[in-house]
């Protein structure tokens, strides 16, 4: 099969000491940002971006994607040992992971978490290996209206499916779009929304927003809640690992279900966080040990971790094939791709064959490397969290400032980061989501181009978005997603009354 050939080529490309070294560095940095409060996968990747400008794209994406895997693993360490989710997507892991650690089963919980994370990620990569070429081929036929409809679908899904209030999601998203519009208009070359201010000429970069919203905002929230690290000790011996592995096969059904949930939520913009919660609640509903959930049930660790990682990896499928990221981190990576001069989307598979397959091959290897590295370094990273906050916080703030500065070598960006930090704190406390803002800031220009070109084709008629079955069904699906909360409420009301009647009859 041609996929296997391409994969082998990719493997040959990445199996060099240089690339394996980059993987280990990426994973270590990733675990570090995953473990530290205030830093997470999205801003870890954003901080590292300016350093990759001089690298080969393949090396750069290996470094960044391995950082992503590392951050996902790092998030589980803090969830299990400290009851502090390092990443939003590992919140569900704390439900049973921390109780297990308190019962003295920290080693088992960590091994189960890491192993199921690896298995979940592998399912995501398999999906990517065998589906991406087909989806890319299919998407090659897309023209501007189809592309805009796909963007619309992504954005509407965010609004309709988000746990946050829809209007707040819209506000966050529109701020992102407005940010993307500042500076030079990509179509006419005109300057816009600069209000004659020289510091607005080069536009507002999404990296600065990521660093401010996630980094500084997170630190401020952490300070307000008053940080208490009460960690459990972890000792992972080879015996613990082997014993846990021997127990794992009996959970194959949980694992399979969680991987499927993860892949689905990763490909659609539900994201890893939604995937891990959903998978946890499904596992609790179907488990034989239902009563033990929340008290330290290993199944309650396996389910969210598998879903989290399979969603994380499969989020790269729409990013590579359609240019639409399925998670905040994937959005930042997509921005990186554009900065390196690559055009995410179906043409990537033809023009940048080596890059795509190098990345896919590195995902197999990178996840295995992650598992080995993370098992070996758990005690080291757990001890980092025991460093007092008054040392770790200023260093994190310094790293964020340097990161914001190095995007354009501009002090203005550091000030902007601070403003976004304050905004991030308010957003977090008032339930405004951050991911849609980032997604819109990265994709704004591309969505606008697609929209304006479609309008050119149709002479300003919106009916072009229903001009053929493909674009019509995409647009309709987008609108359905947008109004999903209302529809769901209507359906529930309908079914609710029916069930009520049925109960009456019986």
């Amino acid at each position, binding site marked *: 099969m041609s996929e296997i050939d391409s994969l082998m080529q990719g493997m040959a490309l990445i199996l060099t000491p240089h690339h394996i070294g980059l993987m280990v560095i990426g994973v270590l940095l990733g675990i570090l940002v995953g473990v530290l409060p205030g830093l997470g996968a999205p801003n870890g990747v954003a901080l590292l971006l*300016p*350093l990759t400008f*001089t690298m080969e794209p393949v090396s750069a994406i290996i470094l960044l994607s391995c950082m992503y895997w590392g951050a996902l693993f790092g998030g589980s360490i803090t969830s299990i040992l400290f009851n502090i989710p390092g990443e939003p997507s590992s919140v569900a892991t704390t439900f049973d992971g921390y109780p297990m650690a308190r019962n003295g089963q920290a080693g088992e919980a960590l091994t189960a978490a890491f192993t199921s994370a690896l298995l979940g990620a592998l399912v995501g990569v398999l999906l990517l290996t065998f589906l991406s070429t087909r989806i890319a081929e299919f998407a090659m036929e897309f023209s501007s209206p189809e592309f805009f409809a796909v963007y619309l679908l992504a954005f509407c899904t965010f609004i309709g499916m988000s746990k946050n*209030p829809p*209007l*707040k999601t*819209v*506000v966050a998203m*529109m*701020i992102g*779009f*407005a940010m993307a*519009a500042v500076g030079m*208009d990509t*179509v*006419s070359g*005109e300057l*816009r*929304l*600069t*209000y004659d201010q020289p510091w607005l000429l080069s536009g507002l970069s999404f990296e600065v927003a990521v660093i401010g919203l996630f980094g*500084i905002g997170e*630190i*401020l929230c952490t*300070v*307000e*809640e*008053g940080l208490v690290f009460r960690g459990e000790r972890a000792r992972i011996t080879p015996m613990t690992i082997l014993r846990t592995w021997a127990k794992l096969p009996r959970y194959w059904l949980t694992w399979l279900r969680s991987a499927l949930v993860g892949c689905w939520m990763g490909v659609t913009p539900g994201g890893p966080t939604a995937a891990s919660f959903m998978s946890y609640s499904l596992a609790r509903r179907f488990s034989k040990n239902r009563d033990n959930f929340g008290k330290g049930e290993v199944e309650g660790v396996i389910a969210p971790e598998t879903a989290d990682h399979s969603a994380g990896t499969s989020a790269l499928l729409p990013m590579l094939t359609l240019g639409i990221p399925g998670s905040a981190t994937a959005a930042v990576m997509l921005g990186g791709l554009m900065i390196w001069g690559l055009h995410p989307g179906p043409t990537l598979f033809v023009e940048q064959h080596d890059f795509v397959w190098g990345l896919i091959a590195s995902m197999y290897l990178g996840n295995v490397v992650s598992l080995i590295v993370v098992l070996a370094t758990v005690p080291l990273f757990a001890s980092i969290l025991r460093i*007092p906050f*008054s*040392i770790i*916080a*200023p*260093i994190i*703030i*310094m*790293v964020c*400032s*340097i990161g914001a*500065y*190095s995007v354009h*070598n501009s*002090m203005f960006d*550091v*000030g902007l*980061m*601070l403003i976004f*930090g*304050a905004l991030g*704190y*308010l957003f977090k*406390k*008032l339930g*405004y989501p951050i991911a849609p803002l980032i997604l819109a800031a990265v994709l704004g220009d591309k969505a*606008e181009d697609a*929209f*304006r070109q479609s*309008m*050119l084709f149709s002479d*300003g008629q919106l009916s072009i978005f229903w001009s053929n079955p493909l674009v019509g069904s995409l647009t309709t699906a987008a609108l359905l997603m947008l109004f999903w909360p209302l529809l769901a409420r209507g359906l529930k009301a309908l079914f609710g009354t029916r069930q009520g009647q049925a109960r009456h009859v019986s």
Partner: protein
Amino acid sequence: MSNTTDTPLVATRWVEIGLALFTAVLGGIVMVGAVEIGIGWSDTGPEAGYFPFYIGLLLSAASVGNLILALLRTPTMSAAFVGRKAFGQVLAVFLPITLYVIAMPFAGIYLASAVFIAWFMWRDRQRSKPYGIALIATISCGAALASYLIFSLWFKVPLDSGVLGDLVAVVGGSLK
């Protein structure tokens, strides 16, 4: 997540209203900017302000929606947004960061960072074992040095050393 013993500073409603007004104004600014460059059609199709105008419009409309919701929903909105003590802690971190950012163009990233870290550690004296001067100096200077090694030397991304740094460079150059 404010403490129960902490006296409330401000009700959530007011913060909600403030943020909604802010985003509504932001939308207005975007619309004004878009109108300036033209939101209609020209010979070459939609003008540059066409798309941003609707972005601004949606932003303002959604903000007004949030504003109305904040005014209508009584029970949840009267809850405290943040306690006095907790907000004091937030300010105790936010204000130093602001000073740090303001000082950066003058003092340069390295010096500002070293002082910032040192001050942060020095302030935390009420802990059972205050940090010694040696530890403070090692960590703050070490962090600045590490950022110099990683960014300037290794990745060749020079960081702004500020007016003071330029002065040192000039003096150093004249000594040679």
